[in-house]
């Protein structure tokens, strides 16, 4: 009983002290909490203490978020008591608009291109006359320090024909050439890659509803070859780094994943950078990060996230290119080798209806 009483007294003191502090601090600045659903790709940024500090100190905002898949949040999730949705692709915005739910405003905040991650052994040497690997095969070219997959159709064809690594003179690896990606049904990067694949099969043109059925057998056969697919882009990227070239010679990811890794593990990065390769498909597709505001607080967040300091921080520490029209990112500030200033050739994703067809076919529905 005595213990209980002591507890109550302590509690009362703490509450009283807390109230004093709260009243005192609320007098100086008001902090608002904005609630929303966010695609997992941005968790690294939102969890960053520095980022939280800028938001709070400069704008008086705390983002309270829950990680939800991009398509899932647009399609199924209840949006009551939520200020915003922040998916990782434009398809989600399209789906949301079709759902007749209330949209106050939307704007694209960040972009990150879909890239392929590989290794020195696979990509090979570009030394004239002594080329090896994918460079020798004419699939990859190094232009101004950046590796581009200049012949995406050839890479896809090589995979579809069941060619072996040894057929490309990459004799260190056994088995067939393949690109690992996340499950397009569950994960955004896999989903975008499926869209890119469909476009590539359609003579590098955005595939529409009238043409998708023609390419479906090839799309299905491509994904069937992959066996088990991870359901998170973060997990796949981590396994790529952990298990190395023998296990994951070539994977699909976002450009910003490597930037995030390099800035987080600065001491470690010099060892890694010699081995890993970032390959930019030509053309590629943006993973866009449109913010869908559902309340005035959500609209306010669009304004805040468009702030120069925030945009710069997101680029330098987490590799998100700006999604704002007319703004440029400077790659010189990044230590990641081979990141181009601009992503020149970007194509549109197929429409939401086409993607829906692909997903349903992959699900076997």
């Amino acid at each position, binding site marked *: 009983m005595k213990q209980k009483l002591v507890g109550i007294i*302590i*509690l009362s003191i*703490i*509450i009283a002290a*807390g*109230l004093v502090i*709260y009243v005192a601090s609320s007098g100086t600045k008001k902090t608002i909490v904005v609630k929303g659903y966010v695609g997992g790709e941005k968790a690294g940024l939102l969890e960053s203490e520095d980022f939280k500090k800028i938001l709070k100190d400069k704008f008086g905002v705390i983002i309270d978020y829950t990680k939800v898949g991009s398509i899932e949040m647009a399609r199924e999730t209840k949006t009551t008591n939520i200020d915003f949705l922040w998916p990782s692709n434009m398809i989600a915005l399209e789906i949301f608009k079709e759902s007749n739910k209330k949209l106050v405003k939307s704007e694209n905040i960040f972009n990150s291109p879909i890239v392929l991650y590989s*290794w020195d*052994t696979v990509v090979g040497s570009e030394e004239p006359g002594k080329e090896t690997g994918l460079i020798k095969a004419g699939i990859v070219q190094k232009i101004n320090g950046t590796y581009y997959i200049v012949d995406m159709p050839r890479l896809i064809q090589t995979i579809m024909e*069941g060619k*072996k690594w040894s057929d490309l003179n990459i004799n*260190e*690896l*056994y*088995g*067939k050439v*393949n690109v690992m990606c996340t499950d397009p049904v569950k994960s955004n990067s896999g989903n975008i890659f499926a869209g890119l694949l469909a476009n590539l099969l359609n003579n590098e043109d955005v595939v529409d509803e009238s043409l998708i059925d023609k390419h479906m057998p090839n799309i299905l056969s491509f994904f*069937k*070859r*992959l*066996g*088990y697919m*991870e359901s998170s882009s973060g*997990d796949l990227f*981590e*396994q790529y*780094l*952990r*298990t*190395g*070239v*023998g*296990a*994951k010679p070539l994977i699909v990811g976002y450009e910003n994943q490597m930037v995030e890794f390099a800035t987080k593990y600065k*001491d*470690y990065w010099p*060892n*890694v950078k010699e*081995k*890993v390769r970032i390959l930019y498909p030509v053309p590629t597709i943006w993973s866009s990060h449109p913010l869908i505001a559902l309340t005035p607080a959500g609209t306010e967040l669009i304004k805040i996230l468009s702030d120069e300091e925030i945009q710069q921080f997101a680029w330098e520490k987490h590799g998100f290119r700006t999604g704002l029209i007319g703004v440029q990112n400077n790659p010189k500030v990044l230590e990641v080798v081979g990141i181009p200033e601009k992503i020149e050739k970007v194509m549109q994703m197929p429409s939401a209806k086409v993607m829906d067809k692909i997903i349903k076919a992959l699900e076997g529905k």
Partner: protein
Amino acid sequence: MKRYIMLIFILLCSLFSIHCSSETNKFTIISGSENKSLEELVKEFGKKNGYDVEIHYKGSVDIMLELESNSISGDAVWPANSFWLALGDKQKKVKNAKSIMTSPVVLGVKAGLAQKLGLIDKTVNVQDILKLVEEKKLKFMMTSATQSNSGASLYLSLLYALLENPDVITKEDLNRADLKERIKLIFSGVNRSSESSGFLKELFLSHPEGFDAMVNYEALIIETNLELEKRGLEPLHVIYIENTTAMSDSPLGYIHRNEPKKEEFFEKLQDYLLSEQTQNTITSYGRRTGVSGVSSKTDTGIFNPNWGISTDKILTAMRVPAPEVIKEALTLYQTTLRKPSLTVYCLDFSGSMAGSGEQQLKEAMKTLLLQDTASKYLLQAAPNDITIVIPFSDRTFASMRVNGNDKTALLELFNKINEKKPTGGTDIYSPVIIALDKIIKENTETNIPAIVLMTDGQSNTGRNFQALAEHWRRAGIDIPVFSILFGEADEKQLKEIASLTSGGVFDGRTNLITAFRKAKGQN
């Protein structure tokens, strides 16, 4: 107003946390046995952060089954490979799983033999191993593919390599007769199996003169070699199977139960394990860390090139098949491809078993013998398995036997056990001696033998340990006795038998069925 309520809530929470931190909280990790060497590291960290971390070791299949049935206990899981999470975690209970380290599954062959067989400094393919086994030049220990990750990984990667590294293994591939024949041939070289990688290592070290080779994680071969060299014995030479090597990635994941404090501790623990300093410590235990598994601070005393270890070598990993293909492959292993077993159960029906003991024993035998329940644990019988049951008390009763996996025959065997009533004293040695005699008469080249002895009391009558030891030595065959401790059984007596026969003792006092499953998982 809402804000004030929120504030009070936060204050209450912080008060609660102050209260909690003065006490020790419990945090349980369900882990594969290969993580035993990291236990101290994890516990120490827990202690510093006000948590008493307990690690319960379970096989990968158990972890998968428990996730699947949503009956997983504990706060975190730490299996050897992320595909067990993918297979089992249909309910999405596991959150924030991250690979802590990697280790390839390799073949360790005694250095002298490896030299003689021409396995050193040479590219070794699955086909080379197949040939050595066919010519009866190589026998090896491996864990059960349906109970342990290292066995499953080896099995799946063998399938993959024998199919000549296809895009991915399909269900149709599994039905190929030529593939089945070749896999069976490789497994005919298995001379000892086990339900866990850690236990396999211990078995080897308990009897190093009795075994030539062992399939295990590189990390556990390193641990074995360090111990062998300490004893002045010949180390194992590590052979990476060139055309496919399975890589374990040891993901540590949180089991989501809406306990923010525990989750916070979990994240701290994970960050700690992934911090540069701890990763270096983990490397010093023979685990690979860092990008591509090649840490910059690799110690050649641990990753010893003289043992054949190379961290630079590119290891081609199997492409993980779809979950339904893995499941089918595991069933195929258990019912068709593994080397058949020859198991003699010596079951205690002494008077003290009456009541709960008798009931639990019968329940355990039901789990193993009734094929519907056995298959749930991937412990079902195969066509060439032999099952013998010898009930005993102070006397040994007539034995019962079933050849193969006929459901009705195994059900009848269970019915006979079910009719038995406990009575009399205890003599554990006589039934084991009889079991040895029965095994000697069988072909132990084609079947992996094991005796499972279950008892609840001290042996106080009949024959003694010396008689058993003499008998065992005279037999000259590797026949392990796995004992299950129950009731008032004398642990010392059972350990003596285990050490003689390179067997083991499983504690059935908390869960007899689990102990029986573990014992059965040995062959």
